[in-house]
């Protein structure tokens, strides 16, 4: 059975998404909604990571329950960068690139949740299915947020 592998992959992709959201948040501190929502949405993925570690134990995969947190020196450096470039138009382009990455990562996570849900139905694991039903909609909301942010910013950034 390869469910364990799927869980491991999802655990990895959720962590990756959390990291990307935290980075986006820190780097674009002066875009205040990105700053706050980046953190908020990262916390959703962090919660998923914890829940997945829990589920993994039932399939004999050892997943770290501690999600990435984005703390540390690197983060501090990025924040300084953010303050310095508040008036630099290049920061806006960077925002598009960063949010685009969040969007594609979230798409990947979404697919991974679908795979896990399919598997959970196959083995009639009601608990795992319920987990997927609780978490996957949040992934979709993360995607929609990134997509909306891209749409909202793209015109201004690309035509000015």
């Amino acid at each position: 059975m390869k469910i364990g592998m799927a869980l491991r992959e999802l655990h990895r992709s959720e962590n990756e998404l959390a990291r990307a959201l935290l980075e986006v948040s820190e780097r674009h501190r002066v875009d205040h909604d990105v700053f706050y929502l980046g953190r908020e949405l990262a916390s959703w993925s962090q919660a998923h990571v914890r829940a997945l570690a829990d589920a993994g134990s039932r399939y004999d995969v050892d997943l770290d329950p501690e999600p990435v947190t984005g703390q540390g020196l690197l983060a501090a450096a990025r924040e300084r960068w953010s303050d310095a470039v508040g008036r630099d138009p290049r920061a806006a382009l960077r925002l598009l690139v960063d949010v685009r990455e969040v969007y594609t990562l979230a798409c990947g996570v979404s697919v991974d949740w679908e795979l896990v849900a399919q598997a959970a139905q196959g083995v009639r694991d009601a608990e795992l299915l319920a987990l997927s039903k609780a978490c996957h909609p949040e992934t979709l909301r993360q995607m929609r947020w990134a997509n909306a942010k891209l749409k909202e910013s793209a015109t201004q950034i690309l035509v000015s």
Partner: protein
Amino acid sequence: MSRDAIAAPWGTRTPYGRGEVWPVRVDMHLADGVTEADVDRWVQSASILHSNGDALDIAVKDGRVVGVRGRGEDRVNHGRLGPKDLFGWQANRSPDRLTRPLVRRGGRLVETDWDEAMDLVVRRSQDLLAEQGPSALGFYTTGQLFLEEYYTLGVVAHAGVGTPHVDGNTRLCTATAAAALKQSFGCDGQPGSYTDVDHADVIALYGHNMAETQSVLWTRILDRLAGPNPPAVVCVDPRLTPVAREAAVHLAPRPGTNVALMNGLLAEVIAHDWVDHDYVERHVVGFDELKEQLATWSADRAADVCDVPVEDLREAARLVGTADRLLSTVLQGFYQSNQATAAAVQVNNIHLVRGRLGTPGNGILQMNGQPTAQNTREAGADGDLAAFRNWTNESHVADLARVWNVDPMTIPHYTPPTHVMQQLRYAEEGSIRFLWVQATNPLVSLPELHRVRSVLSQERLFLVVQDIFLTETAQIADVVLPAATWGEKEGTFTNVDRTVHYSGKAVEPPGEARPDLDIFLDYARRMGFQDKDGGPLVHWHDPESAFEAWKECTRGRPCDYTGLTYDRLQGGSGVQWPCNDRSPDGTERLYVDGAFWSAPDYCESYGRDLVTGAPVSQTEYKALNPHGKAVVKYARYVPPHELPSEEYPLQLTTGRTLYHFHTRTKTARAPQLQAAAPEVWVEMSAHDADAYGVAEGDLLEVASPRAAVQARLRVSGIRRGVVFLPFHYGYWDTPSGHEPDGGARAANELTVTEWDPCSKQPIFKTAVARVRLLERGDGTPSAAPSTTASRSVRTGPPATAGGPAAAVEEDVRARVAGGAR
């Protein structure tokens, strides 16, 4: 009978019982030495210093305004006037009115003529359009112009310039009201009516200090409270407001916890099954999810998060849960706080779950702050599409393009309108390079003022300010356009409960000041905006023809004005929209029998995610709500982002006082109002004042992580751990002019740059703060009024009074308003 309208702002009681008609009481104030017999003419109008829409007549003598008198026949106020109505008009004839256009030359603003000023504005617009396109231009308007002006501005900005960067200061004020209505009912538009006060048996005020923000509506409630079978009042407010003093239950939650509080109330309502299952079945979608989400909530949990007594929370739930006729009102305590839209939506949810909507006494008033905010929203001057069209619905855009006779591509609808905080960000990074500000004063009213000043004073930003005084913002402008104001121009405007009033021209504007409408028409002409057949895009030329154009734009839309004319609005009472062939006398209540405007092809909005703010797509909405029902939505409680710490142990909330409006540009120039609240103050509870060893009148420094201000202390009935600052006080009447010089006093120096993800309304109510004593008082009390929420809980400060200058004639009449209900 005469009273001091400063000392007794709500006046003499005229008690009435449930279902009866509110008696008439006509209030009048005339300038010293003028009597009713001296007045040459009376010109019909309504109040423009709050959102209540009090109808009044302007007294004119020798070509000057000399006073005001309430209109007894009007449905809104039945003759009563509040303090700002009675005294605010004096600002019109203030000697420091702007009378000539100003342009910046060699770093200084110098007088010029209209041709040169407009030429500068037009040339810069055209240069930027050629160089960068419409994305370089932004418009930031107000909630204080007239309907005709907003509509013209909307056409100019959306179809002429073609920019999505259009917003009003209603963003700070009523954006959440609109957003909450769109979430629940698919459309803006106030469901309730002021007449619901006459019928209600429970009135719940959520973060709404009505006694100070809509004083005449509060008078109506006071008259019910004084009559037989009075309603029970439920008050949610961290301060001991006049509303809280009259309340059967007063909940003073921790700032930022409104969603938790509402979850607790709703959980109780559902646990007791105070649910109208038949109504829910027929008219509501989303109830099962709501119930499921609320499963983890209880009165106990909410009481714990909000730090309120659980018995009080239960009692409040019982009152709203069992009321036969329930009226709810909501304002800044919710709109300017953490999770603004989610909390306001929960108030709608209570009504939907209980089936209490659309019948007498069962109403929701998601309040407005400003007199003409409703028009800013409906005419599209806040960036929305005109007449509640849906910017994500292609057929609505096409329909608007038909009305304007332009190509749909010219109307920017590829993205949601750019709200003011985002405009500021674009200006900061340099992609907005032209900003035209009208009748608002961001240098005092936006959060985190240091940042606002630094962005708006950039060399590379061309700032145009259109106003009646040299406000803080006008002082840093490149071009200043002097405007005419209320009483000096003609037009219409709409209050909170959809009542449309006509306002006539009583006197000439001072000097070369011009009506805002004329300024926009002039701009459109000079810019040469055309429709797709080469005709003028803006084809009207005065207020009445603008109104007629607007009527066509509203035909068949929820805010249908087609049954109204200037003639119809003159004399008699204001009329509530929609007013058309089907409802020729206007419409008292919306959503009677669950008939909503939320059908997918008709609704104004598909809603947004309450937490992320991402717009819901047409497809999703169609799946969710195919039959146009009301939608109950839920958002998880999320604590505020700034929480008290060792360094900043207090929470700061900002707000307003009865005697002032906005940044005091008018009210500080009305002597009675200015004398009632002349200086900034800071409020603390008795417990905190003792803990800090400070007393009434001591000068304190209040600091947040962003800045510090100085204010004298008032020990008031505010919640422990919370300090309050009124936000009205800026710098125009200090020697430094537009920014602090030494001790700052504007509350918004301290507030945080953050906004509700759904309504984009900035959050003014949940910053953290610390205080320290700067200087002991000499026994002189702070300048806080004693009649209002700032009343002292200690003895000492004298009672606020206005003396003979504030005398108002009250004429209490047995006769009821002529058919006006």
